């Protein structure tokens, strides 16, 4: 049987001569579960003067479906510009093993730390890490940066600053969806009680479990960042009322000794429902690639 399996290994990678990159898909392990990941590697090799690898942290639940294509486009464009990139799926998400109740904030942090270690073991020459997080992936990236000293850079695309508010936003989206379908009105408090009493709640086809809710309800990233002193980019992606909390986050990142560039984009994104064709943004991709070049390849003295 192992012979039969190994004959499929030759399909697990591709070379794009036009984009000058190689992609390699595989499974790696954390806590006994298989996690899915893809390396995006420049064909010409990484630059000698910088040895930073980029690890991407996914959004949560339905947002990972919405953002999947733009993640892929970002990874490919970075690799095209000679940055090695690692995209992976947390336990209980995407193509990885595990079930939805496995998905906690701690498990996502653990998986990201494991991904960093795996990346550095597999790819020669990497000695520092940039964490690129979208939405809750940004929140995870911030926490991981405080635990892993090799993380020198952060790119945070519309990170979730106050996680309790985020989960209430999810509950609100369920309420609005039910109303739009002409179903009986239900209050946020009722949904919250259902989540706590039943241990889980169906939110637009995704099971949100009590564990991740209670684990994160007291987390406010503006108050908890203390250890990261590297360079960061904060991107406000959509038309949302997050300016104040992003300003606070930015101030906090700078207070700890780092730099924080801030860019506001006004992209039209439906966070909870995928669109066709899938969402992507040339502007976001260009912004990220340019920032990486300026801060990693040609840092100001």
């Amino acid at each position, binding site marked *: 049987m192992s012979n*039969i*399996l190994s004959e*499929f*290994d030759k*399909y*697990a*990678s*591709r070379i*794009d001569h036009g984009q000058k990159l190689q*992609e390699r*898909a*595989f*499974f790696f392990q954390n806590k*006994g579960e*298989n996690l*899915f990941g*893809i390396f995006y590697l420049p064909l010409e090799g990484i630059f000698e003067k910088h040895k930073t690898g980029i690890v991407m942290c996914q959004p949560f639940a*339905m947002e990972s*479906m919405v953002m*999947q*294509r733009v993640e*892929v486009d970002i990874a490919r464009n970075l690799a095209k510009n000679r940055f090695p990139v690692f995209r992976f799926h947390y336990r209980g*998400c*995407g*193509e990885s*093993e595990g079930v*939805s109740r496995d998905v906690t904030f701690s498990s996502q942090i653990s998986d990201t730390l494991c991904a960093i270690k795996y990346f550095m073991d597999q790819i020669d020459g990497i000695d520092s890490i940039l964490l690129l997080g979208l939405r809750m992936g940004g929140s995870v990236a911030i926490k991981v940066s405080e635990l892993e000293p090799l993380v020198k850079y952060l790119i945070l695309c519309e990170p979730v600053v106050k996680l309790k508010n985020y989960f209430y936003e999810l509950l609100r989206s369920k309420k609005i*969806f039910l109303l739009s*379908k002409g179903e009986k009105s239900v209050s946020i408090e009722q949904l919250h009680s259902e989540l706590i009493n039943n241990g889980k709640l*169906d939110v*637009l*086809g*995704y*099971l949100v479990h009590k564990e991740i809710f209670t684990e994160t309800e007291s987390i406010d990233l503006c108050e908890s960042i203390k250890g990261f002193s590297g360079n960061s980019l904060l991107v406000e992606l959509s038309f949302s009322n997050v300016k104040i909390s992003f300003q606070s986050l930015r101030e906090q990142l700078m207070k700890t000794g780092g730099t924080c560039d801030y860019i506001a984009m006004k992209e039209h994104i439906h966070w909870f*429902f*995928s669109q*066709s*064709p*899938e969402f992507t943004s040339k502007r976001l991709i260009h912004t990220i690639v340019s920032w990486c070049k300026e801060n990693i390849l040609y840092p100001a003295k």
Partner: protein
Amino acid sequence: MHKIIRQEKPVYFSVRNKDLFGVLYIPNVSPLPKKTVLIQVCRDLRNRVGLKLARELSSLGFYVFRFDFFGRGDSSGIPRICHIEQPFTHELIDVVNFVNVLLQPKRTIVLGNCFDAITSLSIVPFCKIHGLILMTFPIVNSNELIKQKAKQISFGLIIDNFRKYRIKKELFDVNLLRKSLNLGFGILKKKLINAESDLNIMSDIPNQFSIIIKDRLPTLLLFGSKDFYYPILRQYLEQINYTKYKNINLCVMEGGELYGLNNIQSQDFVFSMIVDWMTSTYIGTDN
């Protein structure tokens, strides 16, 4: 708890000079005596329903291949706009051919949802397959779609709009006025003469279904009773007297909507219907 040893392989493959991405699920038990593969058109069903289905079916002896079309998911290329009268027929035929070369299966079944179901149906006249699973798909052409949506607009709403101040603008905007009048008269006609329109099914559907009937192609149709296209599909199936044909199975989630799989109930329904149908149709049978 016994750990399931999974055999899942990422696959990059070339179609029309572009690299598509898929994941192959190899049975982790003895494969069926007749090697059978289910091709899931489009990886990203909500809440990993496609992935869960693939893992369950591979534990029953089926091979499963889930993939992304151009410009979607992890595939390369530019995404094409999904137009219901222009399914991705040739691309899917190429994918089926690739899978047939890769695995050399005895039986190939294709599963599609919504637009991907139209694409799956569209290959029937051109490609030898052994089963079809179609979930909540559009069945009428674009013009008929507009008419059906018009039926949902109450006549009162049209009258109400005429009362509002915007009528002054509409009187001078010929196109807006024409559209409103067409809509209004269409509804009036329907209500006055109670006429049942011809269904205006998409032009390829009758041919595709006639092949399904002639070849006795096992076909599973999954809809929710609240899905937009369900009443039209039901009417069409009754017109062709579908209950006469044992190979066509219609499973309906009563009181629910499968479109978008926006709740766990619809996902569980789809999962269990597909697993049951695959098991009863292909395990221990001559299909």
